[in-house]
């Protein structure tokens, strides 16, 4: 659990003072990913770095796992928080293995335990330990370095992670792949994560909560669905974009629409189906795309065992605005 109470940061310089973070109040539950989203210079990095005291707080307080960070030993605090820096920040003078082992070494782990943990993390990140662990960072591609940066932050299994645009500067394919891996890993790890991004699609995909900032102020915090279906003000509306309804489609699956749609069940289903077929677990954006390209405007929905469940057509999406992931999870 991480809690911000009136958290404020004012940068003082000789001739002026800049309020980079202004009176922020919210909390993040254990095991949740909270994405900080906003335009460049809005204070995301500043707020993130206030948590491990890389930047001292000016006013207010921040609590991590129930303890005020200013009352904790600064070195202990930092070692208990995984930190993935914008641009990875690997130590160029150390091998990949040594990079990953930095915090465990400081915590006094024995050799065997470190070795095991290192291999485990590299495999988790999809990098073969035998091939990579003795290399230096410059011998890895940008995407591989970024993965090592994440592995290094995870090494001592900290309950809290701070990640500053860990997937920035990657090509879309690798980025998408790493995001999926990250979600898969997080499912088991259940860490409390603060994640900085300036990409709305990434925020929607990864965040349990999304916090949107503008010039140091918290504009809105909520689930991706809340942000997309109920933007609180003009700034948020502009920031998420006019296509927010389309973006919401990615939050829901075909099955979600099926559950609430009586119309859907009534669709007649021939035994002989020659048109397009789509899985019930596909997201609605892909489903809509299929529908738009289907000649007769209909696609057949099948379950995991390829059993036909019904026919979906564009008019089923009329229900879409009333469907929220929150309600669905109750129905399920």
């Amino acid at each position, binding site marked *: 659990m991480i809690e911000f109470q009136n958290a404020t940061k004012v940068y003082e310089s000789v001739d002026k003072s800049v309020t980079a973070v202004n009176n922020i109040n919210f909390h993040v539950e254990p095991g949740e990913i909270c994405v900080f989203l906003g335009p460049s210079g809005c204070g995301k990095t500043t707020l993130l770095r206030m948590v491990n005291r890389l930047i001292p707080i000016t006013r207010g307080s921040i609590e991590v796992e129930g303890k005020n960070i200013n009352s904790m030993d600064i070195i202990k*605090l930092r070692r208990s928080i995984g930190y993935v*820096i914008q641009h990875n*920040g690997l*130590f160029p*003078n150390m091998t990949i293995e040594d990079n990953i082992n930095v*915090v465990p070494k400081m915590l006094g782990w024995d050799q065997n335990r470190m070795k095991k943990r290192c291999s485990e993390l590299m495999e988790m990140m999809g990098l073969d330990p035998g091939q990579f662990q003795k290399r230096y960072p410059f011998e890895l591609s940008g995407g591989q370095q970024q993965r090592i940066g994440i592995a290094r*932050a995870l090494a001592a299994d900290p309950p809290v992670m701070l990640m500053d645009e860990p997937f920035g500067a990657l090509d879309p394919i690798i980025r998408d792949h790493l995001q999926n891996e990250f979600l898969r890993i997080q499912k088991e790890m259940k860490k409390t994560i603060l994640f900085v991004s300036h990409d709305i699609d990434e925020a929607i995909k990864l965040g349990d909560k999304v916090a949107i900032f503008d010039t140091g102020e918290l504009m809105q915090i909520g689930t991706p669905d809340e942000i997309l279906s109920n933007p609180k003000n003009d700034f948020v509306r502009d920031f998420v974009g006019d296509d927010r309804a389309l973006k919401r489609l990615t939050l829901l699956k075909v099955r979600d629409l099926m559950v609430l749609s009586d119309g859907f069940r009534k669709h007649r289903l021939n035994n002989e189906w020659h048109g397009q077929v789509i899985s019930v677990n596909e997201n609605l954006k892909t489903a809509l795309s299929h529908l738009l390209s289907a000649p007769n405007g209909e696609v057949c929905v099948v379950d995991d065992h390829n059993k036909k469940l019904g026919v979906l057509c564009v008019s089923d999406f009329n229900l879409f605005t009333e469907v929220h992931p929150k309600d669905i999870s109750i129905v399920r």
Partner: protein
Amino acid sequence: MEILEFVQTNWLEILQMTLEHIELVGLAVGIAIITGVPFGIYISQRESLANLVLAVAGIIMTIPSIALFGIMIPIFSLINQGIGYLPAIVALILYSQLPIIRNTYIAIKNVDPNVRDAAIGMGMTTFQRLIKVELPLAFPVIMAGVRMAIVLTIGIGAIAAYIGAGGLGGYIARGISTSYAAMIQVGAISVSTLAISIDVLLGKFQKRFSSRESIKS
């Protein structure tokens, strides 16, 4: 041919003076490293102090060596050491400080801020950060400073013979006062040869280390 004759008859003395010279330079630069590197690290953490220190060190560098030795004599006379080894060593230490302090300072300052940030953010203490990250990354540049200091001191060390420090400069000083050309030439050639060969040697050594340490950063 006078030179060859001189070398033939005096080779043992030449060797001995060369060793003396190396000892003088080694001691001076050794002390300069022990004091200069920590000092360079220290000022790299204090920007305001750094400018002052680098300026003062720069001024010392511009004092002609013979004048600096001259200044040393009255100061060291106070403790009855006006002429000889001690004032020479002190002057040489002062000279070799500048390249060492400056290069240490620059090297530490130039460590990628992201890397430094990562080190702090992961919970390294200042000492751990210096030992594990900043100094290894700064090493090649510090080495370049040391190399510069050594070559510089070999040259200036020859002049130190005038205040009785010994070493190859002795030949030059004695040769000039007795108008013995071969002796001057042998002294000068020996000093140059020593400087060049040590520079080459250090260059090789430096390359071996930096190919492992710095190219990647």
